[in-house]
């Protein structure tokens, strides 16, 4: 709760765990480990270097990677840019064709469009209504000059989980196409095993998993012998792939946060708890009638529920719930880019339903009381707006 509002926007960001904040603070002040991790000629630098490498090992362990495969970035957006531009430029003599999906995050789509402006060709795959990309479609899209396939693991809007291993198999069969996976939403929501996935590159974010904003990582497979061109020049940090002084406090924050994520049976228990809350939410909203679920339950992470409300104007819906509930909206006027959700449009929702969608994303602090409040608030807003619109056929007095 913040200012009286229930926070159900964990897919946008999560609160930094206090233990993470404490570990970060210990790297900042004069009495802490503030040294430059590249300054190996004194103890200040050595201590910072040790912290950076400890964090690297923590991130690698959480993602099923080798520590040497972890390249620090400022977040998943930079990691996506590094992967896409890095492979495209390094492999440009091999080919200039990429494959991605219409439902990717803009941190993938915008670099692809920029490459198109520079002469590359990009194939944009269309998902099924469930949000899933057919692995056969990936295989069919591969051409002799394809150098990269970039498809996200967990979709940020609807939570659908893609079959990464199948995409990796298609790329392996092709021979030269690399597979990049945007896994910004994955850590803490589902199992992530970079090594076993068969992916060549994977983008990670800290702030979606109770870490700080401003830090992420790109995993670059050593076993697959992946090479990328750097985006930044000016130093040999991160094996020359990401010049610039490593922000010790940021990477320590990421390493600490990922180390605190539940694993094994504890993780499974938490996912079952969250799944139960999500179904409680869906059940409550369904009672309103005219509520459509975006994404296929069986293929989605339990933390995300995306729904569209028939005969409700999206901007008004968001304005009505805003004092009480923090969620994301597909409303055109509510979002920064002033366009209805292109992800929902790609899934076949019309513009009105895309605009009247709400994404509820649950987190470790979400309780049953929060869900009941959310149902009560959304139901009140939807019923009231339908009454104002006078939509025939709606039972505005439907009890919950």
């Amino acid at each position, binding site marked *: 709760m913040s200012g009286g509002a229930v926070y159900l926007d964990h897919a946008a960001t999560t609160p930094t765990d206090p233990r993470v904040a404490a570990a970060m603070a210990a790297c900042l002040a004069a009495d802490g480990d503030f040294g430059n991790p590249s300054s190996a000629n004194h103890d200040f630098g050595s201590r910072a270097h040790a912290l950076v490498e400890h964090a690297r090992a923590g991130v690698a362990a959480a993602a099923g990677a080798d520590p040497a495969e972890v390249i620090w970035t400022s977040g998943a957006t930079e990691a996506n840019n590094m992967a896409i531009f890095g492979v495209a430029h390094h492999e440009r003599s091999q080919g200039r064709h990429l494959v991605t999906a219409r439902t990717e995050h803009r941190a993938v789509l915008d670099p692809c469009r920029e490459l198109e402006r520079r002469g590359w060709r990009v194939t944009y795959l269309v998902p099924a209504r469930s949000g899933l990309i057919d692995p056969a479609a990936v295989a069919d899209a591969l051409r002799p000059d394809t150098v990269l396939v970039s498809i996200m693991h967990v979709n940020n809007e609807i939570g659908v989980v893609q079959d990464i291993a199948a995409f990796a198999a298609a790329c392996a069969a092709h021979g030269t196409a690399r597979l990049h996976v945007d896994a910004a939403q994955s850590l803490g929501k589902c199992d992530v095993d970079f090594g076993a996935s068969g992916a060549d590159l994977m983008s990670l974010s800290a702030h979606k998993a109770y870490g700080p904003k401003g830090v992420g990582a790109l995993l670059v497979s050593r076993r697959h012998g992946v090479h990328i061109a750097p985006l930044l020049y000016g130093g040999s940090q991160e094996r020359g792939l990401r010049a610039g002084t490593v922000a010790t406090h940021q990477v320590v924050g990421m390493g600490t946060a990922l180390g605190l994520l539940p694993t094994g049976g504890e993780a499974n228990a938490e996912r079952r708890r969250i799944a139960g809350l999500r179904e409680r939410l869906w059940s409550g909203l369904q009672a309103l009638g005219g509520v459509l679920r975006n994404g296929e339950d069986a293929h989605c992470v339990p933390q995300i529920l995306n729904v569209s409300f028939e*005969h409700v*104007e999206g901007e008004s819906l968001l304005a*009505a719930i805003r004092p009480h509930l923090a969620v994301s909206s597909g409303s055109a006027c*509510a979002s920064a880019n002033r366009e209805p959700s292109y992800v929902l449009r790609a899934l076949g929702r019309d513009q009105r339903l895309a*605009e009247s969608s709400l994404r509820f994303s649950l987190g470790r602090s979400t309780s049953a009381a929060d869900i009941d409040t959310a149902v009560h608030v959304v139901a009140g807003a939807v019923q009231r707006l339908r009454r104002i*619109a*006078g939509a025939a056929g709606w039972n505005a007095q439907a009890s919950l």
Partner: protein
Amino acid sequence: MDYNEPTLRGFETALYTGELSGPGVGRGAAGSVAAGTWVQFDVQVSAGDTAQPRIETACIENARFRAYGCPHTIAAADWVCQRAAGRPAGAGLPESVESLQRRFEVPVPKMGRLLLIEDAWAAAVAELASRR
């Protein structure tokens, strides 16, 4: 999007939603749900005025609206209804589009929604006149 206080108040209370019926009621609408904004007004002139030969001079007694639209649209439509009572039906929108824009601080890209309110109001008065 942030809204000013009059917009939030009008959107949250929306006292003049609904429909009217009777011989002195004219109904008009503009826009469409498919296009994102739809507004309907019911304008009622007093019973004595229904016998007047010119509806333009008849006195508005009551007004109600229905709307599928953003908070600016709902607040402005509600305000128009609130201001209507006692005004001549032929006097046009009870508050000009420009004044509504300033009152509710409607962003320029959304000005078209206020024009729909003006169109719906004019259609309601025209429908009332056409009955005579």
